[in-house]
């Protein structure tokens, strides 16, 4: 798509352009890694600051961290179940926090002020590579969760209530990561595009409600991704009777 025919100084639309880094024979999307490092850095800074001096009466950032922890624990516990949620809580929580901070960072930080030779900075989750990586990690984890908890009996799940389910369950293993990754990618990219197009067409006032809507979808998408990941893991470790 490149740039549209006429160009305003503050609004420019670039889709599908990347800042390529070449490491050996590997090609990387530099802008994705740059923002993801900022996201990870922000997360780690928050966590390190909040866990510095933890007390029984929480103060300052510790309150926020405990709220997040409690929220993630509830999410993991309701989806995975009492028995196995402790093992998977860090993974679910990391997914949630990483996606949430990525999405909101993409929506809130004026990345455009930083000029790149090619492509532009934005939410790491607006790149298909990131979302597919996350979705494949979820697939691997639920296989690992099922196999490590139940051994080969995990595959009973494929013929669970009747063997007729077998082809559907096999198809599900492919559709799960596909839907997870495309849902997140599509929502975040679409949000960025809508805002960009609106800013491009009507640079004042009008984009603001859409930006708020974007913040809302961003948060919801993070929650949906984490909840579904937890649900898949919970499905894999669940005992059938």
């Amino acid at each position, binding site marked *: 798509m490149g740039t549209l025919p006429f160009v305003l100084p503050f609004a420019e639309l670039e889709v599908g352009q990347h800042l390529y880094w070449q490491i050996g024979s590997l090609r990387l999307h530099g802008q994705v*890694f740059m923002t993801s490092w900022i996201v990870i850095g922000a997360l780690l800074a928050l966590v390190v600051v909040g866990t510095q001096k933890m*007390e029984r009466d929480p103060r300052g950032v510790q309150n926020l961290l405990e709220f997040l922890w409690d929220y993630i624990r509830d999410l993991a516990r309701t989806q995975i179940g009492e028995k196995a949620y402790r093992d998977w809580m860090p993974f679910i929580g*990391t*997914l949630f926090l990483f996606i949430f901070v990525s999405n909101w960072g993409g929506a809130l930080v004026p990345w455009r002020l930083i000029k790149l030779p090619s492509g532009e900075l934005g939410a790491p989750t607006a790149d298909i590579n990131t979302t597919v990586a996350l979705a494949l990690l979820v697939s691997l984890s639920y296989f690992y969760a099922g196999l490590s908890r139940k051994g080969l009996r995990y595959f009973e799940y494929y013929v669970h209530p009747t063997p007729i389910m077998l082809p559907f369950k096999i198809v599900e293993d492919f559709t799960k990561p596909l839907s997870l990754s495309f849902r997140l990618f599509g929502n975040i990219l679409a949000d960025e595009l809508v805002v960009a197009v609106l800013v491009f067409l009507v640079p004042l006032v009008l984009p603001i409600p859409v930006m708020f809507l974007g913040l809302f979808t961003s948060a919801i998408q993070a929650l949906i991704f984490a909840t579904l990941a937890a649900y898949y893991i919970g499905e894999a470790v669940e005992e059938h009777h």
Partner: protein
Amino acid sequence: MTSLLLFGATEGGLFDFDATLPLMAVQVVLLTFILNALFFRPVGRVVEEREGYVINTRAEAKKRLAEVEKLEAELREQLKEARQAAQKLINEAEQDSDKLYREALALATAEANASREKARREIDSQRESALNQLKVDSEKLGDLIVERLLSVK
């Protein structure tokens, strides 16, 4: 042309898969381990310690409350007993003092009676002796009168 670029046929595009994918996966796995060590474990420890503390404190408070209620009942019982004992003591003391009063009264009455009796007897004996004396004197006087009369003759 546009759609071709969008779907990443050659260079760039939205669906441009490359080494970003596995490296991002590795990055997220690393982040999971780091957050587990820096966030989930320590915060979980603090939260669970607090939950344990709250549960313990509540149980202890309940126990103490029960103890206090038991003690209160005991004290109330003791108070009742003490009141009853005091009442009994007062009654006894009243009875004692009453008895003492009666005894003292009886003693005093008896003493008074005795001394009155003694006085009466004394009066009686004195009167008697006076009477005797008078009798003797009158007899003497009579005799004397008779003698004088006889001697005159």
